[in-house]
């Protein structure tokens, strides 16, 4: 297990009080249905504090209630990042167990939302790094014109949905976008994921990833440039 994942419970400091409205802000670039969902989750803000305190006293029911506040958002993020429900479930399990073991060390220096997202994103980053290492060993073939290509890239990517109703066109499009996203560094991928697909403010992205808003912004620029390059013909 990498050091940054272990360090989570002890590095919860440095969050600005402004990010308390974080759950309400999410979804700015996504559909209104999900925005409503996130806003609905934010209603429990006051409850969170008391639930965390109860959980810190060893009340498991309170912790399970906290899990129910956040677990759908956690699963949504993990599924979209890993493209695999089993792996997402593993991340979910590991994240909440880690949170349970360390909740006594949570000192309210940032919202519980930021804290749990930090644990989840650390685990997802580990996952992405491992996947990248595996990809480096991926089989490479040479096509008729003599250029090398990744054999795995030719396999249709059906991760996003497994939805038979979705037509072939959009499935292929999804596959191409997924492959372009996979070429980003894990950190770029994470920043882009949180900003574009989960609608978090860059300030919050910075806090979740233990960095500054400026760094998150620059990472987003880099990720966007790479994606534009990879998907140039689709524009």
């Amino acid at each position, binding site marked *: 297990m990498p050091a940054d994942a272990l360090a989570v419970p002890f590095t919860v400091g440095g969050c600005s009080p402004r990010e308390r409205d974080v759950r309400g802000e999410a979804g700015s670039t996504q559909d209104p249905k999900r925005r409503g969902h996130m806003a609905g989750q934010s209603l429990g803000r006051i409850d969170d504090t008391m639930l965390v305190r109860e959980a810190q006293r060893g009340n498991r029911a309170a912790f399970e209630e906290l899990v129910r506040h956040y677990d759908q958002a956690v699963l949504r993020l993990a599924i*979209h990042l890993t493209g695999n429900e089993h792996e997402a479930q593993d991340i979910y399990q590991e994240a909440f167990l880690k949170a349970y073991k360390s909740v006594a060390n949570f000192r309210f220096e940032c919202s519980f939302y930021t804290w749990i997202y930090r644990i989840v994103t650390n685990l997802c980053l580990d996952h992405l790094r491992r996947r990248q290492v595996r990809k480096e060993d991926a089989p490479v073939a040479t096509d008729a014109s003599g250029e090398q290509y990744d054999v795995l890239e030719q396999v249709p990517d059906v991760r996003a*949905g497994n939805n038979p109703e979705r037509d072939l066109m959009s499935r292929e499009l999804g596959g191409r976008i997924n492959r372009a996203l996979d070429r980003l560094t894990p950190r770029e991928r994470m920043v882009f994921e949180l900003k574009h697909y989960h609608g978090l403010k860059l300030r919050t992205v910075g806090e979740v990833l233990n960095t500054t808003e400026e760094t998150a912004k620059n990472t987003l620029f880099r990720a966007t440039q790479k*994606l534009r390059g990879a998907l140039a013909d689709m524009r």
Partner: protein
Amino acid sequence: MKCDWVKENVLLYVYNELPDDARYELEQHLARCTDCAAELKTTRKFHAVLSELQVEEPSPNLVASSRMRLQEALETTSQGGFWQRLVFDPAMWLRQMRVSPALSAAIFIIGFASGIGATYKIVNGGAAGAISVPALSAPSESSVAGIQSISQDPGSNQISIKYNTLSTQEAQGSLNDQRIQQLLLFAARNNYNSGVRMDSVDLLTQQPNGTHVREALIYALRYDSNPGVRLKALGGLGNYVKSDPRVRDAVLEGLMNDSNPGVRTEALHLLEPVRADGSVRAVLQGLAESDKNQYIKAQARNMLAQMPEFD
């Protein structure tokens, strides 16, 4: 120059991340500059293309099975917090102590306090060593750091309460509002400011039907350090002396042990309708014989004299 700035910021514009003034400036420029307007169009299109990859909601089955799996794992997992802090943190504390005398003083105080706390828990936990966990039924108490003020608008039933959580917040609502009630209950029990306790107890006496409210009033009567608050709580409990034995016991306790003669006198008056009750009678006899306060002694005798003899 301006175009460069716009091209750098058009992505943030699309993501709604520009501050208002920059946003306005950018929009002004876009209206005039076709090149930059084209850049915005491209960026928007790119944004739309990427949004084709949708974020799927996890299926209810997946959510349910994940929760079950987690619950099973939690059964066998213990929280590391307390021991972890005890075992790992001293090294960190020592490191920080070197650089910060103020912190070391704080750590000393915390250590002292947690020592007392731990002893308390062990003593109360009994042989099994179980640490008592407060029920979740009134968990809001833990989120409220303190009550600052309570006020009621004259002529309406609107009550304003200022209380601290992480920051000061204000709750408004009628006395029937559950949140307001919770805050009042918290204020009645826990606030350091006796004026606030007085206000909250006063408001709670307007609606003493709920068991939580009655419990809070009994608590105030028994343990509040301010006689005014105790007197107010007593007033609110008056109507329940007959019907609720717990109220009667609390009032009796007040009558016997309260340090303030005013509270004792009031308690005595409240017990008048139930003077025939066995426990009340016994207390009255005790008071009539040997109470230090002459007035209470005389009143107790009076009440006993008015009582029909049973034997």
